[in-house]
């Protein structure tokens, strides 16, 4: 127990003292996850919106697939990307394995189903109530679609935030395709695993505290957005 308290104290010193290595790891984590979620949003939001406006019968099988992929284990995503990017894989010549780009790719694969699935639900909900009103006011097809997406914007934002929460905290995928290389592909989650195994608990705890703070911020944001969705 004394060790844990000592570790916590050291961790606090590292954070307050803005330890360079700690900060580098945190910034890389945020950079990789932000890039992944942005890419996933560019794909997932239009896809989710398109599917959400189709009759649910016609997209049932696709919905089931998306819902299944929402629970895709990160190590499985990591394994698939690893096989694609390895020397013997089809994308081997691109030499992306063990680079931040490989990590971004793996996290994008994890985030797309979440953002797509939640956007689909949000748009489908709004589609029912908004479509008739927009049509009776003389909106063209394009304007109807844009209106529905705009009305669902809070729920879509919540989908993106949920996607970010999923990827920033995952370890399996980034470990497999990133390799946890110091100064290059070491992110918060992989660093925590490594430092714990080395017995360097202060560093691991410091990163853990920051990760918790990020998770708290994400959840608070999600809670606020969902509160606004409910109230509207």
């Amino acid at each position, binding site marked *: 127990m004394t060790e844990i308290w000592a570790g916590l104290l050291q961790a606090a010193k590292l954070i307050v003292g803005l330890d360079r290595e700690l900060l580098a790891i945190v910034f890389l984590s945020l950079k990789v996850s932000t890039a992944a979620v942005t890419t996933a949003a560019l794909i997932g939001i239009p896809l989710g919106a398109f599917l959400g406006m189709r009759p649910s019968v016609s997209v049932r099988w696709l919905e089931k697939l998306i819902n299944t992929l929402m629970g895709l284990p990160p190590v499985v995503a990591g394994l698939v990307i690893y096989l694609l990017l390895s020397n013997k894989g089809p994308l081997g010549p691109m030499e992306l394995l063990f680079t931040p780009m490989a990590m971004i790719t793996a996290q994008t694969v994890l985030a797309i189903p979440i953002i797509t699935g939640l956007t689909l639900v949000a748009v489908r909900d709004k589609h029912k109530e908004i479509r008739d009103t927009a049509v009776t*006011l003389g*909106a063209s097809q394009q304007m109807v679609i844009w209106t529905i997406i705009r009305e669902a914007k809070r729920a879509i934002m919540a989908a993106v935030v949920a996607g970010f929460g999923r990827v920033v905290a995952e370890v399996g995928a980034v470990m497999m395709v990133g390799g946890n290389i110091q100064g290059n592909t070491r992110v918060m989650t992989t660093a925590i695993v490594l430092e714990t195994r080395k017995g360097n608990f202060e560093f691991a705890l410091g990163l853990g505290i920051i990760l918790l703070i990020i998770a708290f911020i994400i959840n608070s944001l999600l809670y606020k957005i969902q509160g606004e969705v409910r109230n509207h």
Partner: protein
Amino acid sequence: MLSVDKLVIEKGKIYGIIGPSGAGKSTLLRILNLLEPPSHGSLFFNGMPVTKAGKQVLDMRRKMTMVFQRPILFDTSVYNNVKYGLRARGYAKKDITRLTNIALDEVGLTEFTNRNARSLSGGEAQRIALARAMVLEPEVILLDEPTSNLDPANVAIVEKITKRLHEKQGTTVIMVTHNIFQAQRMADEILFFFKGKLIEQGSTDKIFNNPQDDRTGAFINGEMIY
């Protein structure tokens, strides 16, 4: 199931559609508003047949509008809600401003211009929906039980606005209502529906004082009919 052999709606009149729940009144309104196509038969608007899709249907739709029982307001200001249809039709910005402000004044909601529309009461929401419809100067306005959730004061306001719209712009009004006294007050002609069929159509005076069908008479007298 709705089954109507023939129905003619004349320009410039106020029609009251009455009948028990499940008679098909709202379905009729949705078909007349081109929200749903009929499964059989034809629909004509101003003498032109209504086709399934395309610019012609959009042009027809833009000559009419509908106010629902529970109006759906967009998650934006009252002003942006009211101007929506004008934007859809490509009006110039200054015309949008002028017409929107006039409509808000007509329904007595100028002070709420910048408020989020969803923060207003039921009666105010219905007035926004009416302003949103009025500003378009439609040839036809369809009202699906527009006052069923309102208190008597707001009922009076909504009826007054509807009548003014009809008098000022010559708009044809087609109104579904469960309130037969409202139908009697406002309508020039009454359509009585029962189990999906148009049982009787006639002037308000004739329907209320000398209905031809027993079911019409029974409904007007407040008797349950099955």
